[in-house]
């Protein structure tokens, strides 16, 4: 501090001066940009259009894009401060190789040679499948498409999956089961035109706040929210359904039971467009309102009323997120949701859709183009026809294309524990914080011969464990497209140069392909993500996710374009072999780890509006960190009384796996007696030390939402 400031002559009036931004008006002079670059937000899958303001090549501000149809100028608190992520102190700047336990900077050339030597070595020794790759939902679609080819065709391993399996795999699997293909059928506009909206396990007010404006504008709709916790979203509801954890299937089946009982189904639609009605009808007989009331803890009258509202709706939309997906029955729950839409014909019309609200900014892009759980363009590994088609486009021998999916994310980790996967390449994700049952993941990492982590940030809890860290460009530093929850492909643009020696993921992939000697074969003549996009257009042509009519310029001009139009299945024709959607009989099983004995409480995990995933970005944004600097544990006061705990006590969450210490206790009626809630963002108090290794057998998604724990005072336990 200078003496003028100490004396008070200077009050930093220059730093705090205001000025006139030619576009955005009167504002702090430090936020005035000399250039605005339009792009799409890099956090969640709502896909808000925004502008990055730069001055002298440095990002100084962001603004919502008023012309963008998704958000019409609005952004959430994370979006409003997103420019700070570009200048975070923890950006990865140089390739780092760990030698004798210490990271040493090395050249890119050396880094990639080392990586390939190690990977090739492991593959030569243990087989091609000994290399696992775990990707993300954060790259641009063009990069996902490139990476998929690089991994499957270049490295020749199919043990390739994304962190999207921790997020929306259940929605993907559920859609595939019911409709024959992935792809959310609806649009955000449905939230404005529906007259009944049922949100299940979706706390949009915290997680997708920009969608709430649409709920707000739709004054006509009855909003029903089913959640075990009184979330911010529950407070918006006309009818709040405080269901017991994992009783949503019973609720959905109970509604279907009443619809069939009272003739509130669309028989014509069922007969024309579905299969399995008779079996479903018989199966649902046992889901009487009385039975469902018992399972869900809702009143019979409430269940009847919700069923009536849904059955009589002119247009009904069901939205869901992680409350449904994070479950050992996630895919099946999605099927039960789809059942309701199919029974009533509430699909393929304005305001009517079973709508999965996705997580990451480009989870959809990797679902479509990623080559992980399916072949690019929603093609199936199992289909000879699909493989032939791709081989022709790619000008490759069809034998090069795998005939079945490799290991899914949790199975890659289990395989590493079993020493079957011996080298791992992790791209833009932080499993040390986000993967369930921390100890298993650490065991997997310890068994690896070589771990490469490619990320925009270092150190993160995951990069710290790597043998090699590759510094990558992030949102704001590269060009391509993101696809949002409503299938809208939006343009992502580069506003600033990546810091230090960081390179775009695309450049890294191409450089690796060159070293592998496969560049000419799989990326012929490619120099930019635009080349990948052009090929992807061809690959997706004629598929459900058809990009062939889109150009980057048009996408940019129109504020994004939805593949498949505003909604899918308008003609009732589905992607199944017979063109009919399938109705599924879904049992409501108890969740795997029931509370009792030494672990009497159910632990639920989730998010808070200030943070994104594992905070590698938002933890570096000062205002977001200041608003929510640490985790907390929500407990009902009635439970606290029994345990002799007080508000603000320093507590530990203890499960059969491990414990999480030093969490501040919040006594609140937000959670039901018998349940506790904790946000999952914080590496310092990582709730995934407590969560379990239980995965959906269909989607392989982890069961994050319920496990048995006890709560005790940290000081007591730790002496």
């Amino acid at each position, binding site marked *: 501090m200078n003496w003028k400031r*100490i*004396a*008070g002559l200077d*009050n*930093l009036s220059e*730093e*705090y001066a*205001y000025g006139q931004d030619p*576009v*955005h*008006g*009167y*504002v*702090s002079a430090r*936020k005035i940009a000399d250039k605005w670059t*339009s792009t799409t937000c890099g956090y969640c899958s709502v896909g808000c259009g925004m502008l990055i303001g730069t001055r002298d090549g440095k990002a100084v*501000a962001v603004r*919502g*894009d*008023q*012309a*963008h149809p998704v958000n019409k*100028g*609005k*952004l*959430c*608190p994370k979006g*409003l*401060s997103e420019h700070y992520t570009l200048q975070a102190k923890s950006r990865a700047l140089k390739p780092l190789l760990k030698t004798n336990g210490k990271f040493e900077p090395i050249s890119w050339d050396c880094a990639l040679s080392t990586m390939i030597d190690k990977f090739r070595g492991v593959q030569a020794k243990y087989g091609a499948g000994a290399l696992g790759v775990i990707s993300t939902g954060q790259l641009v679609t063009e990069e996902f498409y490139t990476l998929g080819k690089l991994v499957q065709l270049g490295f020749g391993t199919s043990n390739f999956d994304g962190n999207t399996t921790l997020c929306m795999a259940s929605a993907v699997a559920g859609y595939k089961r019911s409709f024959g293909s992935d792809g959310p059928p609806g649009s955000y506009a449905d939230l404005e035109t529906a007259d009944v909206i049922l949100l299940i396990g979706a706390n949009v*007010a*915290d997680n997708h*706040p*920009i969608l*709430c*404006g649409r709920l*707000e504008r739709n004054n006509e709709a009855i909003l029903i929210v089913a959640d075990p916790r*009184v979330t*911010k979203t529950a*407070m*918006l509801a006309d009818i*709040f359904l405080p269901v017991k954890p994992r009783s949503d299937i019973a609720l959905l089946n109970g509604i279907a039971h009443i619809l069939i009982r009272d003739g509130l189904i669309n028989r014509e639609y069922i007969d024309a467009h579905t299969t399995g009605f008779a079996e479903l009808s018989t199966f649902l007989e046992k889901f009487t309102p009385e039975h469902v009331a018992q399972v869900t803890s809702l009143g019979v009258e409430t269940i009847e009323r919700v069923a009536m509202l849904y059955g009589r709706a002119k247009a009904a939309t069901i939205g869901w997120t992680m409350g449904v997906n994070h479950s050992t029955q996630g895919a099946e729950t999605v099927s039960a949701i789809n059942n309701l839409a199919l029974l009533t014909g509430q699909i393929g019309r304005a305001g009517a859709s079973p709508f999965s609200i996705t997580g990451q900014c480009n989870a959809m892009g990797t679902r479509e183009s990623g080559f992980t759980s399916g072949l690019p363009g929603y093609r199936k590994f199992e289909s000879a026809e699909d493989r032939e088609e791709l081989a022709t486009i790619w000008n490759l021998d069809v034998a090069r294309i795998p005939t079945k999916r490799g290991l899914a994310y949790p199975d890659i980790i289990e395989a590493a524990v079993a020493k079957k996967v011996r080298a791992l390449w992790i791209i833009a994700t932080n499993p040390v914080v986000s993967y369930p049952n921390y100890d298993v993941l650490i065991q997997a990492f310890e068994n690896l011969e070589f771990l490469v982590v490619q990320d925009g940030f270092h150190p993160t809890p995951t990069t710290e464990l790597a043998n090699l860290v590759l510094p990558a460009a992030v949102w704001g530093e590269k060009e391509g497209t993101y696809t949002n929850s409503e299938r809208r492909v939006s343009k992502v643009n580069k506003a600033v140069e990546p810091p230090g020696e960081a390179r775009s993921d695309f450049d890294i992939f191409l450089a690796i392909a060159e070293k592998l000697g496969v560049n000419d074969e799989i990326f012929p003549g490619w120099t930019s993500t635009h080349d990948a996009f052009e090929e992807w257009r061809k690959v997706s042509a004629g598929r459900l996710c058809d990009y062939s009519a889109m150009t980057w310029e048009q996408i940019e001009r129109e504020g994004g374009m939805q593949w498949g139009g505003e909604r899918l299945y308008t003609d009732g024709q589905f992607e199944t072999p017979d063109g009919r959607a399938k109705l599924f009989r879904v049992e409501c099983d108890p969740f795997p780890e029931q509370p009792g004995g030494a672990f009497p409480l159910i632990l639920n995990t989730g998010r808070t*509006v*200030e943070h994104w995933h594992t905070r590698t970005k938002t933890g570096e944004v*000062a*205002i*977001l960190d*200041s*608003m929510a*600097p640490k985790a*907390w544990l929500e407990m*009902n006061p009635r439970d606290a009384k029994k345990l002799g705990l007080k*508000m*603000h006590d320093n507590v530990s969450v203890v499960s059969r796996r491990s414990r999480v210490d030093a969490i501040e206790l*919040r006594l*609140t*009626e*937000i*959670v*039901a*007696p018998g349940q506790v809630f904790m946000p999952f963002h914080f590496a310092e108090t990582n709730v995934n030390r407590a969560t379990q290794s239980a995965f959906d057998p269909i989607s392989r998604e982890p069961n994050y939402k319920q496990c048995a724990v006890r709560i005790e005072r940290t000081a007591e336990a730790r002496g």
Partner: protein
Amino acid sequence: MELPLLERARLGDPIARYTDPDFTPPELTSLVPCTVPGAGEQYRFHFDMTKCIGCRCCEVACNEQNGNPADLRWRRVGEIEGGTYPFTQRHYLSMGCNHCVDAACLKGCPVEAYTKDALTGLVLHSADACIGCQYCTWNCPYGVPQYNPERGVVGKCDMCHNRLADGDEPACVNACPEEAIQIEIVNIADWVLNHSAANAPGLPPAHETISTTRITLPGKLGPELEKADHTRVRPEHPHWPLVVMLTLTQLSVGAFFGLAAFGTNGPIAAIAALLVAGLALGASTLHLGRPIYAYRAIKMWRRSWLSREVLLFTLFAGSASAFAAATLFNLPRFAAVPTVLLGLAGVTASAFIYLVPARPAWNNWYTLADFHLTGLVLGPAFLRALGVNLPVWIIAAFATLQLLNQLLKLLHLVRSEEFELKASARLLSQDLKTVLMARLALLVVGGIVLPLAGYAIPALLLALAGELTGRYLFFVSVVPRNMALPWLTQGGTAGKAAA
């Protein structure tokens, strides 16, 4: 007067035009008025609690607009909560400045940094006029003005009036995805008569300053809604320069009282007491964010107790200097009377600074008694330590009164039903218990036992330590009125100051 907004709406929004040349003009936004307030009117915020989802966009947008540090927020979102699961109620309060009709910040400001804008009725603050005394931060019942230690001045929400003048929405209004914040024009006279719509759970009563913010509340609001942060009571900032300044000015005034009452043994005591006063006044400038402009503090003596305090202590110091000089000429002791009167008036002014409704634990006569009794204990003890011959029972008697005063104040806090007073009592009986015990013990030993036992210098040292500790407790144990804040953090600098 028409604002450019009307014209903008006709021509199409320039931001929209920037992003899309074919953009059709949007409908006229209703979130800000199209005209400036007329005679007898002013701008105000309307906050719709039924729409707010607690996303905190407004807070981030406000900081971006004003370039403020992350932990200092001119707009804050608080939580209120009540009910029993599953009939839980949780709601949010988003608040910038309420641009009160009878603004407490403005009335207390010693330098006229605050003005109520004639055209818009907004309460505006000038960072250039401000000297960083932070008196406004004690006066505002909503905790709106925030001290920025980096700048040495206070700042607060000005409703982005420069944006409004251009027809642009204030940053918070513009950012809110739910359109929960609006700008309206209110007729001031009507609002003074009925401003019940400014009240909400989690807010101090609106009538004290006549907050102009209109709040739309949800229809079925339970009576038991509480601030989510009501259990998170943390000690406030100690303001060390003020602890020193108050205790030492009081000691000095008490010493001149002793001299006037019992005479002196030469010039030493008077000169020593004068030096103490000088030290105290010097220390006080260290409290300011901009010490060099301390002299400005006299400006608003017609309105501000802080100005009056500065003025009276300046006169006291002048008079004391004259008296100290005169002691060389053996003047009668009652020549000290003007000095004593000015000093007592100064101490009274000091006390009145703290008699503010926004800080309930200060806002009582115990404060006035506390300040005077500190002087009446320490002053004579000081003289006695310097060898002035005055009866020790005087010290013991005032110390006993001070003890009584402290105990009565504690009783007042403990027995109160008011949240802030109960919370102060909780702080004193829990977090600050040891300090409180030490303070009372020092008073008894230094103020009563040692003087009576004839240990003049130890008595002074312990009594001084006791009163300094007491003044420290005075600052840290006050629980200010405030809006509800989030459960997790205090928001803004409030949390920071206590950290």
